[in-house]
């Protein structure tokens, strides 16, 4: 196994790049190719850790809530299952006719 292959084996075995063993670090100091490989890995991992978490679509919570209400997981103040609200596109519930006074 060449020194570069040993370096790459050490790199594969040490995902936490800052813990790379001294012999491997020494090789990277002397070998431009391996030094670049290490630097690229450090750049990739460093950027990956800083990537912003994307926002879910705004309607996701409404969908979750509707399902929880339908299952009775969400309860009202009296401890009763909260009535499920109709989703978009659902037919409107006809209200009872008002009685005249």
């Amino acid at each position, binding site marked *: 196994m060449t020194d*570069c*292959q040993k370096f*790459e*084996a050490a*790199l*594969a*075995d040490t*995902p936490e790049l800052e813990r790379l063993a001294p012999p491997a670090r020494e090789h990277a100091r002397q070998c*431009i*190719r*391996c030094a*670049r*490989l290490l*630097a*690229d*890995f450090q*750049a*990739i*991992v*460093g*950027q*990956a*850790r*800083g*990537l*912003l*978490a*994307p*926002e*879910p*679509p705004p309607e*996701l*919570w409404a*969908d*979750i*809530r509707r*399902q*929880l*209400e339908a*299952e009775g*997981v*969400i*309860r009202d103040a009296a*401890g009763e*299952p*909260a009535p499920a609200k109709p989703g978009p596109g659902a037919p409107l519930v006809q209200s009872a006719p008002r009685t005249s006074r």
Partner: protein
Amino acid sequence: MADPISPFHRAPKAEDWTEAEAIAAAQRGGAEAFEWLYQRHKRRVYSLCLRMTGNTAEADDLAQEAFLQLFRKIATFRGESAFSTWLHRLAVNVVLMHLRRKGLPEVSLEETTEPTQEDGPKRDVGGPDMALIGSVDRVNLERAIGRLPPGYRTIFVLHDMEGYEHNEIAQMMNCSIGNSKSQLHKARMRLRDLLQQPQSQGAARP
């Protein structure tokens, strides 16, 4: 927490809740509490689902499923681990189950940590190695992660982005620690290759 029996007890408002209070309220079925927990954790769960699948429609469905499973089981949460850890593991399992149902290959049991010739640094005869130093920007990195093969992407997301250790990944992926390390190394090498390509080349593979 204030004594609920005391006549002077006033339940804290939702905006003043600690996570423990929100969890307790959710265990009693309170809608506001569920939403409080959802808003607090939605980005990390959604991010995990999106980055592991590379597909927004799948991520929407899987994030929804993860939260539904969480809220159905919330009464069983006893606080032995951090709530975020519990939720996160649940989300990872939801995504992994989905990937398995799609028939995507598990990490190969024949992989070893020994680098093969094809994994070694490219040896372009007569040409200098390209280095990325200073040229890894977030947009390109996101794009490159999306182009990784599913197995590589999963391990890269779990280890380098979500911070799981290899022993945890090995357990989740039903592989050895050595395989997990090997796949991560290959994922990083593939990302390096993708990031070295000129921007005009290489349309994203499905």
